[in-house]
């Protein structure tokens, strides 16, 4: 155990937040390097470099922690990092994916805004483990302020000697750059992100080869989510087991949930994995206007919609959400009350995928537009009885036939909305208006 001196302080009351990636959020001037240093920041990279802890040992610790990629796919991080050809000569890159662009996702923004140095430290450790000399943080196009503040944080870290050459007098060199995206959702897909960093049009590459062998400029590259990197310093401070113990089986640690929609207190809530949904809803102040919960999208629009009756007894972790036919995704919880028209909601979501498809693969390029137009026609009051079958069929034909997962993601809301609320769709088609009454688009 590399953390035998560390004091373990796990919050016994599970109903509360557990700020881990957002550790500095509740301190004054949270983003400054002083604040981060005051809570023991950058101690882990110092310790790693001073004691020359081997990358193998560090990967082992991360494997024990059970940390899974927080960007949505949930791939075990320790295993992923072990795939990087560490020993190979030549350039290697690590990339932080802060290109959260799906409706309802806003957790990476807060990490960059409130605790950028923990992310930077996490990336330095990752670079040490994987032998990278250069790192990029690809920041979503719509958040210019956070991009600027992250550039400031990089400057601070460089001035303090944590970035650049000869870090902590250890002969270890690593530099980090922020890249500002232009707001394309597809650039959150790791290979499209790599293309974008190379200055090309953001379009996913066909895999294999995977970035670990053929990434930026054809060099080995590791891409992880912001939250994943930001978790690393804590894991090294308190130990992998402590992190794992925070959560439940197969879902170790904490997770930031970005709660939005019809709740009283929307915002980011970092909680221990396995918290009951009801408790998370309470944290967010419950459904607004004393209305009843109708349904939620637990992990962002690319995860399946769950009706209220199924979610109320669920727990917020990978397996808990898989059990009710959805998934954790990036933890973007969208809450819908009983005044929500599912047909109009689906119209908005399918417009998003139609607008954000990169246009490379036929099924996604053509299919997302087709789906959107059918739903739009239904909402306009011109639906036809056969439209529902057509929608389901077209969505199924997009799914699994494209280079990247955007095609699959676009199909998920259509299939789950129709699956759970078929009657509402049928009503809309038959009457040309919503079952819910006066609703907003």
């Amino acid at each position, binding site marked *: 155990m590399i953390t035998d001196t560390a004091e373990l302080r796990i919050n016994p009351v599970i109903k509360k937040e557990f700020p881990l990636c957002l550790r500095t959020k509740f301190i004054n001037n949270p983003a400054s390097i002083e604040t981060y240093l005051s809570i023991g920041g950058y101690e882990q990279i110092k310790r790693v470099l001073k004691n020359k802890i081997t990358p193998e040992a560090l990967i082992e610790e991360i494997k024990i922690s059970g940390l899974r990629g927080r960007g949505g796919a949930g791939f075990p991080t320790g295993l992923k990092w072990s795939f990087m050809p560490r020993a190979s000569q030549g350039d290697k890159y690590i990339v932080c994916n802060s290109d959260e662009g799906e409706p309802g996702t806003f957790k990476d923004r807060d990490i960059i805004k409130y605790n950028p140095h923990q992310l930077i430290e996490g990336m330095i450790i990752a670079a040490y483990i994987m032998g990278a000399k250069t790192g990029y943080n690809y920041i979503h196009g719509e958040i210019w302020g956070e991009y600027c503040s992250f550039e400031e944080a990089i400057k601070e870290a460089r001035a303090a000697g944590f970035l650049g050459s000869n870090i902590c007098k250890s002969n270890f060199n690593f530099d980090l750059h922020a890249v500002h995206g232009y707001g394309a959702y597809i650039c959150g897909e790791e290979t499209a992100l790599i293309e974008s960093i190379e200055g090309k049009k953001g379009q996913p590459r066909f895999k294999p080869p995977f970035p670990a062998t053929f990434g930026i400029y054809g060099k080995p590259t590791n891409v992880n989510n912001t939250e994943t990197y930001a978790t690393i310093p804590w894991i090294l401070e308190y130990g992998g087991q402590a992190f794992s113990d925070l959560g439940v089986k197969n879902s170790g640690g904490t997770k930031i949930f970005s709660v939005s929609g019809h709740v009283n207190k929307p915002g980011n809530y970092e909680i221990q994995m396995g918290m009951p949904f009801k408790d998370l809803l309470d944290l967010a102040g419950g459904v607004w206007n004393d209305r009843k919960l109708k349904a939620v999208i637990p992990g962002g629009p690319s995860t399946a919609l769950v009706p209220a009756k199924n979610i109320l007894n669920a727990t917020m972790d990978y397996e808990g959400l898989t059990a009710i036919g959805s998934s954790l995704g990036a933890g973007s919880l969208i809450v819908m009350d009983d005044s929500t028209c599912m047909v109009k909601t689906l119209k908005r979501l399918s417009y998003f995928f*139609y607008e954000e498809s990169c*246009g490379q693969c036929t099924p996604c390029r053509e299919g997302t537009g087709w789906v959107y137009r059918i739903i739009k026609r239904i909402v306009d009051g011109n639906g036809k009885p056969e439209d529902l079958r057509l929608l389901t069929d077209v969505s199924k034909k997009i799914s699994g036939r494209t280079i990247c997962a955007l095609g699959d993601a676009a199909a998920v809301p259509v299939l789950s909305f129709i699956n759970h609320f078929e009657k509402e769709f049928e009503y809309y088609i038959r009457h040309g208006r919503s079952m819910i009454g006066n609703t907003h688009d």
Partner: protein
Amino acid sequence: MIKIKINGKSIEVEPKTTIIQVADKVGIDIPRFCYHKKLTVAANCRMCLVEVKNFPKPLPACATQVMEGMEISTKSKFTKEAQQSVMEFLLINHPLDCPICDQGGECDLQDTAMAYGASGTRYTEEKRVVFNKNIGPLISTDLTRCIQCTRCVRFLKEVGGVMELGLVGRGEHAEISAYVDKSVESELSGNIIDLCPVGALTSKPFRYSARTWELIRRYTISPHDSLGSNLETHIKNNIVMRVLPKENEKINECWISDRDRYSYEGLNHEDRLTHPMLKKNNKWIKVEWEEAFEFITQKLNKITQSYGADSVAFIMSPQSTLEEGFLFNKLAKSMGSSNIDYRISQKGSELNGSWLGCQVNDIETLDLAVIIGANLRQEQPLLAHRFRKMTSHGGSIVLINGLDDELLMPIKERVICSPTEYSIEILKIIKSIQTHKKIKSIDKSIDSILKKITTDSNSQKISQLILEKNVRVGIFLGQGALDLECANDLYYLSNILSSLVDGICGSLSNYANGVGLDYLGIGAPGINTKNILKKNMAAIITMNIEPDIDITSDTNIQSHLKASKFNIGITPYASKSFDAYDCLLPMSTFTESSGTYINISRQVQSVKAVVSSLAESRPAWKILRVLGNYLGYDDFNYDSTEEIVGEILPSNTLMTYPEINKPEKINTINIRSTTNSLQSYTIVRHEDSDMIVRRARALHARDAKFSDVVNIHPTTLKRLKLTDKNLFEVERNGVKIKLPIHSDLRVALNTVCYHSKYKPSFKLPLIKVADKATL
């Protein structure tokens, strides 16, 4: 080899091949749009999805490599369903305008839709409309039909060398576009028409002129450069309507240059000579063939009697077929004239070398190519692609040239110097190698010169590249170098250089049948076009030449023609160029005549006429044959080109080519500084290379480069006390013309760069042409 199963059949295949390659090899049809065997894999159309056992999703056959034990089903229900759904998606936004689409009848989408598509549509929404882009005079766009396969984008990037088209915009708004307000400039651009699987890119000159099923396909060979690209001509009503490539992996792969593709537009140009013409009392009159032949016979007999047979010059185009060359030569020999040549652009050379030194596809396998005096993209558009391929395989290119034109491929080292300095630069490299390898004597003829040569960093770097271990080196002389006065020396020095490292030495001559005419023994040492004309001939017979543009070896062809007593032009076109002629005989173009070419890599290719001759024009071999009869020579009774070729070529395929003439001594090397002189670098643009191409309308509708302008390096301009506001005097047909000066950093110092149709008229006060130093 690994074992896989495809449609239940077990086969052994090479590892690392893709499913689609295996299927193509064993003859199993997998539909595809974006995949093309010569381009990188995009895997974006998804049409080739197939079922592979143990994979939950269908896999793209174009991008999936076979693995041991893989079981592929290309006909299963799962595969069919995947392919049908992609087909449905492709068609929802595709316009149903097949009846008015030029691609109709030869459309991949149409054919595949017949095989894999449904008979009706479930799509009732509005269809997408994309505005068309004007990308130049050669390619017409109907972008609403585009299915975003990106073949055109990948072709221009990977084969053309620059990404002139791109897929801009996202999702359904993604559309093919050039950069803002740009057209496609690649000299290989027409190939994207063939690549386009739908009617989004069609041929602008051809569109709406015929339907594919009305066209008869006949094969021929391109005479516009020395590659001998294989062409498929499409004919309607005895007119070549368009030209497409015929695949020949060893020569043109599946591409052709724009020059080969669009030159057909010049075939039936209004300039075509349709009847024999005689000049009587300074007036051209149409005559019958018999009258023309009688007139010629009478005149030639008179001239040979008064001035001797050796006073008749026979000048032919290097595009002349073996048969034409053979008969032209036979005519000269029978008459008793030794003055026959085809090297119309070579200024001083006695060189007869047009041989590449290797096979065309061997170029790709070289590790280092030293290219001397070539403007590759203009002279040899498609051969340039082989060099580009070589660099993409990791090979390096060293360029020694008077102009640093953008070759659209990485150049490892470049020496930009005036053409007269090419020899010195080669000598410097030889000297570097000599010093490095400590060789005492390189070659008797140059040992004394080498002592006076000092190397520089450039030549040392190049020699290091050449001397690297296991490097296959090719030294190539371009047409620009072959046309120089010192071409023999250059060839000799290049041979020495290549023999030092056991490399290849070859020419990048653009003489279409140069190798063939060499084989016939035409092009003897000392008797070249320039020397022949100097001798004040009493009669000049030219074949397939527009004299004052094509004959660039002599600056004053018109005055020679005027001075001569009798000029005969065997030519497909009549123009002002022939004003000093007395008789014009209409010859057929390459499409109207059978014949044999030997290309730059010594491949013998015979073709038949693809259309019959226009009006009264006749294939040149027939004209020569009858002329021989009229003049009363023996053995002029050939009935077919096959009969002639039978006499020329050995019955087996073993052919012995004449040795390349080697100079006895190096005599034109000027090692004095040229800083006070002004040298010229001439450019033959690819769309000006011969009579047919010159008359191809669409090729000339592009923005002309190097056309009516003189390019000079700003430093040289400063020395000459000129600016780009001044005019520079050149000559054309004896008329002095002042051309605007373009200040151009790509041109070597002390060099003026201009179109080859102009001749220099160096009469500016500041210029002193360097003295020739004889060593």
